[in-house]
């Protein structure tokens, strides 16, 4: 399975990511997820979220999750970008793409990855109040 992981303070460039996709002729499904910063956290209005990562450990934990994913689903490629630092409301903090032969496995693998990330990858949010 091909993997590509980016943890960076740069804004996520969806169009560039889409352009760089190279998939095998046997692949029939691409699922992308964008997690976008919302205008509120709980009851409080915010203007941004400041994301902090234990970056080296985050890379290691993502690697473990990619391994687990590749053992459960026939996925050709996973690409994941997590933006860190200050991410303003209405901008994406997370972009995940899974390419697989069929739809069901692409959806399942993508959701697995996000669920597990939210349990295991050491990244934290600090909401910046409006």
């Amino acid at each position, binding site marked *: 399975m091909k993997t590509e992981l980016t943890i960076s303070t740069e804004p996520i460039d969806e169009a560039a990511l889409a352009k760089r996709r190279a998939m095998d002729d046997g692949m029939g499904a691409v699922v992308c997820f964008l*997690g976008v910063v919302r205008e509120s956290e709980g009851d409080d209005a915010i203007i941004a979220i400041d*994301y*902090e*990562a*234990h970056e*080296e*450990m*985050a*890379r*290691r*934990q993502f690697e473990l999750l990619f391994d687990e994913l590749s053992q459960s689903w026939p996925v050709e490629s996973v690409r994941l970008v*997590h933006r860190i630092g200050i991410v303003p409301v209405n901008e994406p*903090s*997370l972009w995940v793409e899974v390419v697989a032969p069929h739809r069901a496995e692409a959806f399942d693998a993508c959701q697995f990855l*996000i669920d597990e*990330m*939210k*349990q*295991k*990858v*050491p*990244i*934290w*949010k*600090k909401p910046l109040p409006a």
Partner: protein
Amino acid sequence: MKFWSYFRDHAGCPETEIEIENGATLAKLHEAVCEQFPKLDGSKNSTLKAVGLEYEDDEFILSDGDEVSFFPPVQGG
């Protein structure tokens, strides 16, 4: 020892060195840390613990020079 997210604020520092007896477990270290940084005691049950880049549980036996991280539940995405 490294502290992450609001644990850094509770500890008052991003990292520190802690001396503990040979063959001590991660649980033992956790107790020592909570004594030294009482503000971390309230989050004791939700604390995540890693040695190097891996999660380890309370029974993990520490070695000299291990880099240990304590942090609150993660919130990526």
